[in-house]
């Protein structure tokens, strides 16, 4: 007897889609955690960051402690990627971070952030308060 395959509802498809996204996000996050949050060669540390996608814009925050506001740079590398960097008020050595077995010092925080939806980088708005960088980028809705 032939078994008729049950048709999947819209909600089933959406569930599958979001589960896939969640798995992808977990894989990405684990791959980030497998890398150190610092780079001895470039003397840079990777800052913590957060991103929120709303209907109108993408809001990104980056924690930039011990940095000078005047040194913060937010540069679009392409339509979807931002390069963020900031010089520290002073150089930080490994031993100050509790790692006495490593040699090296850091003088900047640096990261690349990829935006998951099309945005208008030209209309980006940037602010900095208490060492937190906040970037607002309007979304570009394709017609």
């Amino acid at each position, binding site marked *: 007897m032939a078994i008729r395959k049950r048709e999947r509802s819209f909600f089933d498809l959406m569930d599958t889609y979001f589960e896939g996204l969640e798995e992808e996000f977990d894989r990405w996050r684990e791959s980030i*955690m497998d890398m150190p949050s610092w780079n001895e060669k470039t003397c840079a540390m*990777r800052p*913590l960051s957060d991103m929120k996608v709303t209907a109108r814009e993408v809001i990104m925050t980056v924690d930039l402690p011990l940095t000078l506001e005047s040194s913060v740079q937010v540069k679009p590398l392409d339509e979807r990627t931002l390069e963020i960097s900031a010089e520290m008020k002073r150089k930080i050595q490994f031993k100050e971070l509790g790692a006495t077995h490593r040699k090296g010092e850091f003088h900047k925080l640096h990261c690349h952030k990829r935006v998951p939806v099309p945005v208008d980088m030209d209309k980006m708005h940037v602010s900095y308060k208490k060492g*937190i960088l906040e970037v607002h980028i309007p979304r570009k809705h394709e017609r």
Partner: protein
Amino acid sequence: MSEIKVIEKAQIPIGAVMLFGFPDVGLVGVIAASHLIEELGLAEIAYLDSRLMPPLIVLHEGLPHSSIRVFGNDKIMLAVSETPISAEIIYQVMDTLIEWGRSKKVKLMVSLSGMPIEDRQDAKELKVFAAASSPETLKTVKDKGIEALMEGYMVGPQAIMLMRASQIGIPAITLMAQCFLNYPDPESAAEVLKGLATMTGMKVDIAKLLEKGEEIRLKARDVMQRTQQEMTKMKKSQEYDLPVYVS
């Protein structure tokens, strides 16, 4: 027999106040605990040992230590974890610590934690809220002028602490200072310590904590990132949900 053991290293005080500072939002509890240990000169008096815990030790001054330890003096016991506790073992860890605390006749349990708010960087002042294990403790909280968290969800070690303490009749409070969700928040840790002073009279100088705030934020990035992973597994975002009242 419990799969997690408390190994005592020193004389354990009887009738002390037991504090908890575990990795959670803004690392408020861990930063506050670390400051208390330094300011009050608390010594390690016990630690947790278990094969349920990841194969991880913390090296301090060249010597191995458990990642979950209890510091103390004759009046305080402070349980602190230097790494996030996984959702899979959080119940066993908390049950073991609470049962051990009960065996030492602790008079009060206080969990130090945070409450994330939107646009935290724009906040001019950070409020401290409290939740309590019994009507009597809730009254004490209110009498001391700390705003009680009357409705809502709580997720994480502080939630287990409050529930277990309520079940076994130990007065317990969870103090939560408004904070960043995903960034280490020393200012919030300072506020929760002010709340602790109000509740227990346990005063500590917070000037150094605020002075070193930026260095702490830089140092705590890795622990914060790993804590985020565990918070996701514990469905921490449920704390934002509006509760459905069932009376």
